[in-house]
C-alpha cells in the first residue's frame, strides 16, 4: 500500500477496531484541548517568526541599497566640492545614481529637529548627496580613499552601522519564533504521550482481554494510536483556525504602528500555519505509538 493510501485507510479507519477501546472521555477530550491550545500558540510563534523575517529583509534591503555622502566645506568651496564629489561618484563602478539634495529637501529633513522657522540659510549646513547602488554594490573602502584625495570635506556613510544590529535583532527574533514552534511541538508530543499512557493504564483489563483472544500488539496499539491521533488532529485544526482568525483580526500594518502591527502572515505565508494540524497529527501518531508499544511490552 502506498503512503497516501495508508494514511487514508488510517483516518477512515476500522470502526470495529475503534470500538474495542471504551470511549475514553476526559483523557481524549483533554488531548484535543491541549493540541488545540498548542496549535493556537504555534500560529502566533509562526507569525512572529515570519514577521521578523520580513522585517529583517526589509530593513536590510532599504538600508543596503542606499548610502549618504556628507560634505562639510566653507561656503565658497561647497559648490565646487559637491560637483567634484558627484563626478567621482558617477565614475565609481557599482553606483547607479548620485544626486545632491536641494536646499528645500535638506530643510525638510531638518525640520523635525529645528522646527520649520529656522533660517537655515544663515547656518553652515553640510551638503548631502544621496547615493543609489546597483545590485552588486560598490567598494566603500576604495571610494573613501578617492574621496579623501579629491574632496577632503566628504564623509561617506554606507549605513552598515545601522543595518547590522537591526538585522541581527530581527534574525534573533526569527530564531526565537522557530524555537518556540519546536518547543510547542515537543510539548504537544509529551502531553499526548502522558494522556496515552494514562488511557493505556486505565484500560489494562481491555488490553488483557484483547491479548487473551489473540490480538497482536499492533492491533491493540493501533486502536489507541488512531484515537489519539485523530483527537490531536481535530484539536489542532480548531486551534489553528482560531489562531489564524485572531491573526487576521490584528490591526493591519501601518506607517505609524511600525513593527508590532506587522505581525501576521502575507501571501504564501498563510500556507505555513496550515501545516500545524498535520504536524500535530504526526507528532501524536508517533508519540502514542511509541508509548503504546512500550507499555504493551511491559504488561507482558
Amino acid at each position, binding site marked *: 500500500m502506498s503512503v497516501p493510501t495508508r494514511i487514508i485507510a488510517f483516518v477512515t479507519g476500522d470502526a*470495529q*477496531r475503534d*470500538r*474495542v477501546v*471504551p*470511549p475514553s472521555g476526559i483523557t481524549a477530550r483533554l488531548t484535543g484541548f491541549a493540541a488545540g491550545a498548542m496549535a493556537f500558540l504555534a500560529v502566533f510563534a509562526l507569525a512572529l517568526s515570519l514577521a521578523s523575517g520580513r522585517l529583517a529583509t526589509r530593513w536590510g534591503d532599504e538600508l543596503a541599497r542606499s548610502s549618504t555622502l556628507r560634505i562639510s566645506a566653507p561656503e565658497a568651496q561647497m559648490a565646487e566640492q559637491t560637483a567634484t564629489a558627484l563626478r567621482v561618484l558617477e565614475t565609481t563602478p557599482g553606483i547607479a545614481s548620485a544626486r545632491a539634495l536641494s536646499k528645500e529637501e535638506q530643510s525638510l529633513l531638518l525640520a523635525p529637529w529645528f522646527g520649520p522657522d529656522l533660517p537655515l540659510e544663515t547656518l553652515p549646513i553640510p551638503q548631502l548627496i544621496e547615493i543609489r547602488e546597483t545590485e552588486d554594490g560598490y567598494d566603500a573602502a576604495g571610494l573613501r580613499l578617492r574621496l579623501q584625495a579629491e574632496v577632503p570635506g566628504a564623509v561617506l556613510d554606507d549605513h552598515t552601522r545601522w543595518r547590522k544590529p537591526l538585522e541581527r535583532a530581527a534574525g534573533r527574533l526569527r530564531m526565537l519564533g522557530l524555537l518556540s514552534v519546536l518547543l510547542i511541538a515537543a510539548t504537544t508530543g509529551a502531553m499526548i504521550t502522558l494522556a496515552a499512557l494514562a488511557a493505556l493504564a486505565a484500560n489494562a*483489563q*481491555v488490553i*488483557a*482481554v*484483547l*491479548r*487473551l*483472544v*489473540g*490480538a*497482536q*500488539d*499492533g*492491533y491493540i496499539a493501533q486502536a489507541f494510536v488512531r484515537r489519539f491521533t485523530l483527537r490531536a488532529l481535530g484539536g489542532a485544526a480548531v486551534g489553528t483556525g482560531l489562531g489564524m482568525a485572531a491573526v487576521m483580526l490584528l490591526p493591519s500594518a501601518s506607517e505609524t504602528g511600525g513593527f508590532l502591527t506587522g505581525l501576521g502572515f502575507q501571501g504564501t505565508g498563510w500556507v505555513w500555519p496550515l501545516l500545524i494540524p498535520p504536524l500535530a497529527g504526526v507528532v501524536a501518531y508517533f508519540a502514542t505509538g511509541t508509548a503504546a508499544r512500550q507499555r*504493551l*511490552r511491559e504488561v507482558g
Partner: protein
Amino acid sequence: MWRCSGTTGSNVTGAVFLIELENIAYSYGGGELLSDISLKLSPGSFHFLTGPSGSGKTTFLKLCYGALTPTAGQVRIFDQDVREMSRDDHALVRRRVGVVHQDCQFLDHLPVADNVALPLMVSGRDDLENVSNLKELMHWVGLGDRANALPPELSGGERQRAALARAVIMSPDVVLADEPTGNVDWEMSQRLLQLLVQLNRMGKTIMIATHDLNLIRAAKSQVQARVLRIAGRKLQLAGADL
C-alpha cells in the same frame, strides 16, 4: 447446530501432539509449585485436571497456552518452542487455543455478541459467514436472547457460557477451561459440560481444570476422559476409582 470447521493437529507438519510438556518445572519467587511434569496432548483427547486448591491447576493451564514460561524444561505448542516465540507468535497461538478463565473478563462496554465475536474481530475474520455462525453459536450456548446485554448484566452462568462461546468461535484446536463450572449450579454445570463434550466429538482437544468430582463422574459416562491430578508438585494419572 453450530458447526466447527477448524483444523486439528494433523495439519501441523510432523507434529502428532498439539501441546507437549517435557520435564517442566515452575517456581514462583518462593518455592517450586510444579516440578518434573511431562504431558503430551494429542488431537481429540479429553482431559480433566484436578487437585486441591492452590496446587497449581491454573498455573499448569497457563503453561499449556504459553501465558507462562516454565522455569525449567521445555513446552512446545503446535511444534513451536515457547521460549522462542515472539509476542505476536503468542497472539497467533491464542487464536488456536480457546481459553475459558475462572473469572471470565470481557470488554464491559460492548454487548455480549460483540464480546463473543471479539476473536474474529481482532484477527480480521469478522466476515459475513462468521457473523452468521455467531448467531448460531449464541443460541448453542443458550444466549440467543441475551446477545445485546452488556457483560456486567449477565449472571455467573451466563458469563461462563459467553466465555466458552468466545473461546470456541475461532474453531480452535484446543479448548482449555479453568473451573468453568465454578460459579454455577449443578444444572448449569451439566449444560456447560454438554457443550464441551459436543466440542470434543467435533474433534477438539479439551482440558478442564476442576475440583468438582461429580462433574468428572458425569462426564465419564459420555466421553472417554482421562483424569490428571496435581499433587505434591507432580502430575499423576488418577486411578479409575473416581
